[in-house]
Structure formats: structure tokens, C-alpha cells
């Protein structure tokens, strides 16, 4: 057992253990806290599986933004005593789960161990793709429609969550002194870190999504510190949320009408196109996630 495989086994056991604790804890608070720990452990697992981009995204989105959203629900009303699932339902559920897991374990043993066609294809075509980092090239060039639609999913999730907020958004109540002091330091740090991740995206792990999550964190801190602009419910904020999708569609239509075809990025200006779209996308994702957070935190404010 080389030291590397010891770490892998402990990590695999840790992930499963934390996942089990996250779903088995009866109280809502315990489940959310264990889920945040799962975010940390998953980030380490992704690092171990040679996926630094995903470790970044997990740290930024999994435990960061999703963590903030989930934690915000805990500060709302005290956990209601949940009704327990019926005894027979639990037994049936566990049996079905065990059978499904056994079947899946047999199925995954048949997975061939040689790599798929795509890594070679990506390596071959990456030189003119507008980004040296393979994952960014796939996201912004080879499979750019996926990224466009995924930004759209966030836009319409923000629109849907926003539509649920009936009470007009007011600035939060007086903010304790330390939070404003911290915000003054944390805000620029988060924005700088986000910008660094955005620019790094073309040549090394990073990119629009991780940067967007950092900007969302910055906006959330600004909102908590009482900044009016961060309430991100006005028309300007909504314009920013959709800016990413509109920029991408504009690029697509432009390349269709003037260029060689939909979303065909000419190697000459591919790099510039990728960077501009990523920048607009990052800010758009940041404002979109912040909008979802504000819609959530406002939706729970009972109009006194």
C-alpha cells in the first residue's frame, strides 16, 4: 500500500462518511453544516482526481455560494420538528437502495479502462481554440452551446426566485460594526481574487464560473453590510444578470451572419472573443447568484 493509495482510501472513506452524516442527521442545521464539510472534502477529492478546475469550482460554488444559501435558511425560523418517515417506508427505501447500489457496482466494474476519444481530439485542436487551458477551450469553444445554456439556466433560476419575492426589498436592518469593517477589507479581496481567477482561466485552471462565484461572494458581503446597490433587484442588476447570455448570443449571431457559422471562432481573434465573453459571463454569474441569494433572504422576511 503506497502512501498515495492510503490517502486515496482515507479520502474515499471520508467522502462517504461525510455524505452519510449529511443525510442522516435529523435536524436541518446539522444536515446543512455537514454538507458544508462535504464541500471541503469534495474539493480535496477533486484535487486528488487531477481536476483543479473542479476543486476551485467546488470550493467557490459547492461550499461557498451554496453554503451561504443553505446557511441563510438556518437563520430564518427555528427548525420545525420534522415528522419522521414511516418505519416501513424507511425499510423499503434502504432495501431498494441496497439493491440499486449492488447493481450499479456490478455495472461499473464493466467500465473499460482506456480513455475516451475526446482528450486526444481536444489536444489536437486546441492550438487555435482561443484558450491554452483545455477545460476553458472545451467550455468556451468546442462545446460553447452548453456554457451558453448553463448561463441561461442561472438567469431563469434568478428570474424564477425573484418572482417569488412579493415584499419589496428593503435594505437590511442596522449592521453590527465589525461586519462593515470586515466588508471594507473582504470586498476588494474577493473582487481581486475573482479577477485573478478570470484572467488565469485562459492558461491555467480558473475561468468565468469560479470568478463569478467570487463576485457573488463579494456582492453577498456587500448586501449583508447594508450596501444598497448590492440588493441587486433593480433594472441595472437584472441587466447585468442577463448580460452574459446576451453577449454570448450576440457573438453567436455575429459569427453566423459575418463569420463562417454559428459560434465558429476564427483562430485569429478566438482568444479575444473567449476572454470578453468570459468576463461578461463572470460578472453576469456573480450578479445572478447574488440575486438568487437576495431573493432567498428577502423571501423569508415576514413583513412586520
Amino acid at each position, binding site marked *: 500500500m503506497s502512501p498515495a493509495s492510503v490517502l486515496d482510501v482515507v479520502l474515499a472513506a471520508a467522502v462517504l462518511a461525510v455524505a452519510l452524516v449529511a443525510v442522516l442527521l435529523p435536524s436541518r442545521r446539522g444536515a446543512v453544516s455537514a454538507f458544508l464539510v462535504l464541500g471541503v472534502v469534495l474539493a480535496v477529492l477533486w484535487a486528488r482526481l487531477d481536476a483543479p478546475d473542479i476543486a476551485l469550482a467546488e470550493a467557490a460554488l459547492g461550499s461557498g455560494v451554496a453554503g451561504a444559501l443553505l446557511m441563510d435558511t438556518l437563520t430564518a425560523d427555528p427548525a420545525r420538528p420534522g415528522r419522521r418517515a414511516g418505519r416501513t417506508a424507511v425499510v423499503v427505501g434502504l432495501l431498494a437502495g441496497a439493491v440499486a447500489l449492488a447493481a450499479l457496482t456490478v455495472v461499473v466494474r464493466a467500465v473499460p479502462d482506456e480513455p475516451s476519444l475526446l482528450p486526444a481530439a481536444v489536444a489536437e485542436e486546441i492550438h487555435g481554440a482561443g484558450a491554452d487551458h483545455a477545460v476553458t477551450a472545451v467550455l468556451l469553444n*468546442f*462545446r460553447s452551446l452548453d456554457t451558453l445554456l448553463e448561463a*441561461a439556466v442561472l438567469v431563469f433560476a434568478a*428570474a424564477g426566485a425573484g418572482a417569488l419575492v412579493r415584499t419589496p426589498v428593503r435594505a437590511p436592518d442596522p449592521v453590527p460594526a465589525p461586519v462593515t469593517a470586515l466588508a471594507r477589507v473582504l470586498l476588494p479581496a474577493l473582487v481581486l481574487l475573482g479577477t485573478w481567477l478570470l484572467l488565469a482561466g485562459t492558461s491555467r485552471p480558473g475561468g468565468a464560473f469560479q470568478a463569478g462565484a467570487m463576485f457573488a461572494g463579494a456582492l453577498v458581503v456587500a448586501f449583508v453590510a447594508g450596501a444598497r446597490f448590492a440588493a441587486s433587484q433593480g433594472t441595472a442588476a437584472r441587466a447585468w444578470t442577463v448580460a452574459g447570455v446576451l453577449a454570448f448570443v450576440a457573438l453567436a449571431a455575429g459569427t453566423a451572419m459575418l463569420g463562417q*457559422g454559428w459560434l465558429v471562432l476564427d483562430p485569429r481573434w478566438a482568444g479575444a472573443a473567449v476572454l470578453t465573453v468570459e468576463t461578461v459571463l463572470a460578472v453576469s454569474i456573480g450578479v445572478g447568484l447574488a440575486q438568487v441569494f437576495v431573493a432567498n433572504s428577502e423571501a423569508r422576511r415576514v413583513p412586520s
Partner: protein
Amino acid sequence: MSALLLPALVLGPLAAGAVAAVVPRERGRVRAAVGLTTAALTALACAVVVGGVATAPGHEVRVALAGWEPPLGIVLRADAASAALLVLTTLVGVAVSVTVAVRDDAGGGPAFWPLWLGLWAALHGVYVTQDLFNAYVLLELVTVGAVSLVALGKGRSAGPALRYLFVAVVGSLLFLLAIALVYAEAGTLDMSAAAGRVAPGPLLTAALALTLVGMGAKMALFPLHSWLPVAHPAAPAAVSAVLSALVVKAALVVLWRFWVALAPAAGGAAHVLAVASGVAGSAAVLWGGLMALRQRRLKRIVAYSTVTQVGYLALVLPLMAPGGEAARAAWSGGLLLVVAHGLAKAAMFLAAGVLTAAYGSDHLEDLRGAMRHRPWVVAALGVAGVSLAGLPPTLGFAAKWQLLAAGVESGQWWWVAALLAGGLLTVGYTAVVLRAVSAPADAGEQAPEPPPAAVPTVQAAVPLALAVAAVVLSVLAGGLAGLVADTAPRGLA
């Protein structure tokens, strides 16, 4: 030309939805204007693309996005099946857009427009995408749009919306695992490219089973249907029409594309799963029909009718299994049924919306005498019911005829029995609705009940227009069936 327009079908309404989201909520009229212009432009683009598909040599229009062919890039391909679905989506889409533009609360307020346009774009994407993961992302966009629209409904619509979101996301996760298994074996994400690179074995069987269960949950196939009769009635009227007529079909299309591409390579396992789908479909037909008979509220009857019709559509998989002529009939019958059901169901839910708006509730007792005040709307309900039951001159009849022919051709009598039983049950609950609606007000009442609330005439006319479209299209059914049939799948080996 139509190749140039194909991606515009997806990106156009998406951009319009984004623009509508920016327009402030108070300016509902501007959002409605954006919605209507998009509806018109989309109808035009659909006409061009459908024309392109009809005239193109292989009856298909194909675009490799970003200039990359598979396995690297994503391909959008519109074939005859996509054309049929585009026709349906355009008709229902324009009808719903007009209805909400005329009467704001039919859509649940100004937030309707951005979500509806985004949903419309995603539906177009699902019909034409050839890439597995792209289908997953599009299905998530459909789910987010549809759930948010359900949550716009008045009263306690957040609960049903959340339940729908949970079921849809669980279905998507199972489908994502199926994609991972196919990708593990085939090494590519393009459906047609993967078809040649998979072999019978545990991986492909698990992928087919996971997709059947995952998409079954998303389209409310029998054992996994309980969320639909709760969610659809809770939504605003126009949203219920969109949900039953179009959103349910998105998961169905992905299931059919996945099955047509990968099931022939799966050998015996695909037969077993097809029979399972058939059994679930038959159970859905019987259960949905019986439950619809027992409901006392119009919208719930129409929702259970959707559960029944989804049962029919699940029968297409076993009917296609033997291959040859039966597969061609089953495939074209299935697609005609999708279009027929879409038109009829949209007409029914929009009519139910008009009656609910006029009489304040959709309980059958409160709708007594609606025939006298709203003859057009009741006529729409009648025609739609006839089409759902699959009785002549309607498109439903042409579709059911094809399915029956496929069943007889392949000697699978039990599915034929289920089809006929379903037809009877549909006649049953349509009769219940018509009898309740046309029953004269109780003799005991002296003064006629207060005249129903005013409903814009346009909103009252839209359901009838859709129902009549179901009849008119039956004339073209022959041509559409021929166009669809020759691109039919070869059966399971």
C-alpha cells in the same frame, strides 16, 4: 437557409427571454410586446425550418455548432420528428402567448414572459439536439422554466412547484448517470456516433434502464406520475396548457431519441425494458382514465387525462421493438399522437382557464349551464375530447389508427387492448365534463345565476382555434405520416 436558422430557433427566444427579464415588472405591456413579437418571429423561423426539412434530400437539416463535428462539437439536427414537434410547439406557443397577452393573470403576472420565452427556447433545443449532455442541460433549463412558471400560480402553488422540481431533478440525475455510462463505453457524447460504438452488456442495459426511469419521472409515466395531478392544476391556466402539451413531451423526445439511437445495439435487454415501458404505459392508461372519471374538478380531470396520454406514448417503445413495418407505423403514430395530444390538451386547459376565470372555480357543479353562456369554449372542450379519444375526423384518430396498425402488424394484442380501453375511458370522462357543463341550471333557481365574469373574446376563441387545428391537421396527417415514416428507426435486433 434553414440550416442558418436552426440555431436561431434556440438562441432567438432565449435572448428575447433575457431581454424580457430586464424590462421592469411594472411595464407588463412592454414584456407582452416582446413576447408577442418573439412568438411571431419564432413561428416564421419554424415554418422555414420545417419547409427546409420537408424539401431537404435526407429530410434533415444539420448544423455543427462552433464548426466542430462530433465527437468534439455539438450537432443540432432537425429531422421529420423535430419538424412535427416544431409545428406543435409553434401552434400552442402562439396560442398561449396571445392568451396571456390578452389577459394578464392567465399567465400569473408579468414574470410569465421571461420564463415562458426561456422555456420555449429550451423546448426547441430539446427537439433538435443530437448531443447527450446538451440534452441534459436543455432538460434542466426546461425544468427551471416550468417550475418557476408553476410557482406563479395564485394560492399555495409553491408546494406543488417544489415537488415537481424535486422529481424533475431526480430524473435528470438518473439521466446524467446514464450519460456517464454511455460516455464510459462509447467515448463520445453524440447520440448517432455513440450508436455504433456500444455493445450489448451491463453498461448499455443500465443506461437504457436509468434513462427510462429518469425520463419516466420527468414525463409522469405511471408509477412516477403523482406529482402531475398536483402541479398542473396549481399553475396558472396558460401555464397548465404549456406544461401538459409541451413540457411533458420534452422528456419523452429525449427518451425516444436515446432509445432509437442506442436500444437496437442492446439486444435482449432492450426488449425486456420495452415491455416494462409498455406495462407501465398500459397501467397509466387505465389508472389515469379511472381517476379522471372520479374527479369533480375540471382541471384535475384534464391533468389525469395527461397521465393517460403519456401512457399511450410509452406504448410506442414496445410497438417499435419488432422493427420493419410495425416500427415505422408505431414511430409515425407516436409522433402524430404527440401533436394531436398537444393541441387537444392545450385547448382543454385553456378552455378550463376561461371557464375558471368566468365562474370563479373549476368545480363541475359551479360550471352548470356554461353551455348557454360560453358555447364556443364548451365546443372546444368537446372537439378536444373527441381528438383525445381518437375518434374520426380528428388528428387523434389518425395517430391511434397508426398505433393500432402497428400493434396488429406485430401481433402484440395486449397493447392494442390497452389502446382501445384508453379510448373508452377518454370518451367516458369527456362525457362527464360535457354533461356537467351543459346541464341546465337547477330548475329550482328562479333568477339565472349571476352572469359569468367578462372574459376577453379573444381568450375565449383561442381554445376553439386549437381544437379546430387538431381537425384540420388530420387532413395533412397522411403527408406528415409519410414524411415521418421514412426516417423511422429500424426495430430492435
